[in-house]
């Protein structure tokens, strides 16, 4: 709903308002309804909450916090292999995802799709991959493939296809058509138009999206162990179940450092590409 100019000409006075009176009232009513819903929802949540537990929360948090300190540093030696697994799950998963996402994206973009029916299939792949969380993919794959790193890798890959392909096809649709037109005018074939006119324009996005998704996948793969799909989440789950809080804090610190490093790497690489 864009602003609508309203000129009211009464005698010598010219008045300009952004909206008509009717529209202005409509907007106020919209706010009124919105705020009423928020207040109502708040009261429902409030009724269903056991406030005794909430009042107790700071004490409980402090209790767990105190049990976590100091972290059990010696436990780190047992985390080296799991964190290495975690990084591998993320990296391999991202590579698998990008290999599939690039052709899917070209099929999904309006300006490069071979046929509109292919486009529908590609969009379906994107939506179905995105609609299932990687933890749920992992849960299903652990049933199919058995527990371990393979299930985790494929889960990360499946989840990432949609994400990467969506960002890629949107960028393919936004390319400068005149550059492609110029290449077409030289008598270039379709595939030459693709490699000379389109690919140079989307290459930075392909690299950027891959790195960005890798960065996200490092974080996602830390929790896959919760359902048995390999990585450091397995240790995290075990430590929480056995109430080994000093181990939990060590694991959280290792994850924090890993994520920090991956963010730094991806920022550096993205800076270099663009």
């Amino acid at each position, binding site marked *: 709903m864009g602003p609508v100019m309203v000129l009211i000409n009464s005698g010598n006075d010219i008045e300009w308002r952004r909206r008509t009176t009717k529209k202005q009232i409509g907007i106020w009513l919209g706010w009124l309804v919105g705020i009423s819903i928020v207040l109502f929802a708040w009261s429902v949540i409030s009724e269903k909450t056991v406030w005794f537990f909430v009042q107790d929360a700071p004490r409980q948090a402090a209790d767990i916090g105190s049990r976590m300190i100091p972290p059990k540093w010696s436990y780190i030696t047992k985390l080296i292999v799991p964190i290495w697994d975690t990084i591998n799950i993320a990296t391999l998963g991202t590579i698998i995802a990008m290999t599939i996402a690039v052709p899917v994206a070209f099929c999904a973009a309006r300006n490069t799709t071979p046929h509109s029916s292919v486009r529908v299939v590609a969009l379906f792949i994107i939506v179905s991959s995105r609609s299932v969380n990687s933890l749920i993919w992992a849960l299903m794959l652990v049933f199919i493939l058995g527990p371990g790193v393979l299930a985790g890798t494929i889960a990360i890959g499946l989840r990432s296809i949609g994400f990467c392909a969506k960002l890629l096809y949107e960028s393919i649709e936004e390319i*400068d058509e*005149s*550059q492609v*037109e*110029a*290449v*077409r*005018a*030289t*008598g*270039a*074939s379709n*595939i*030459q138009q693709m*490699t*000379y*006119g389109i690919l*140079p*324009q989307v*290459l*930075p996005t392909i690299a950027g999206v891959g790195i960005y998704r890798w960065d996200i996948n490092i974080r996602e793969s830390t929790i896959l162990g919760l359902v048995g799909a390999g990585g450091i989440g397995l240790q995290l789950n075990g430590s929480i179940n056995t109430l080994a809080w000093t181990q939990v804090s060590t694991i959280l610190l290792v994850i924090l450092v890993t994520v920090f490093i991956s963010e730094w790497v991806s920022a550096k690489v993205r800076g270099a590409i663009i």
Partner: protein
Amino acid sequence: MLKLSALTKRYNTGDLALNKVDLEIPDAQVLALIGPSGAGKSTLIRCVNRLVEPTSGTATLNNVNLTKLSSRALRKSRRKMGMIFQEYALVERLTVMENVLSGRLGYVGFWRSYLRKFPKDDIKEAFRLLDRVGLLEMADKRADELSGGQRQRVGICRALIQDPDLLLVDEPTASLDPKTSRQIMRLINELCSERGLTAIINIHDVLLAQMFSQRIVGLANGEVVYDGEPEGLTPEVLTQIYGEEDWTATIDKVEDEDIEE
């Protein structure tokens, strides 16, 4: 020789961009196509190399009916038609050399072009052309590092390396300053006479059109309303092409500059 007969284009929106245009351009003639925005200038040259598909009528280049060609034959014919664009339309992220060599894509197979393994003669010709337009030392620069005038020179090299019979030039100076505009128009003109090229140049600037072409065609609402010598552009003719306006200043200036030249 390029021959258009009853060339018509109606866009899906219903707009009639070209209405039965007949035009005959002999070899080695440089023709300027003038007319207001939306007169159909761009559509006309794009209907020749079929970047825009004409609705009816024919365009014939050296006895080949371009409008009837299959897509493979069309690609082959496009090699003989170089095109120069208003906003240069270089592939921004490729180097100057890659942009020039992309003019050879119609002659080179996919893998050779993908791996940038162009024939030695093509590379020699690319260097020669870059030298001709004064951009030899820019060969390895990325296209987006160049200024407007330099980009347009690269665009000219890309068109010429195709070894074309015909140049289709779409508003080559619209994004350039007056001095660079003249230099670019002079360059296109020189190259056309060096190689005996036929050219259609779409241009907004009536002055430049008169300075740099042998024949002027005025287009209004998709129809040819003037076809003749550059000197024949009287206020009455300009009014017919563009609509009512005080044209004396435009005409006077032309005469002044003619004396200077």
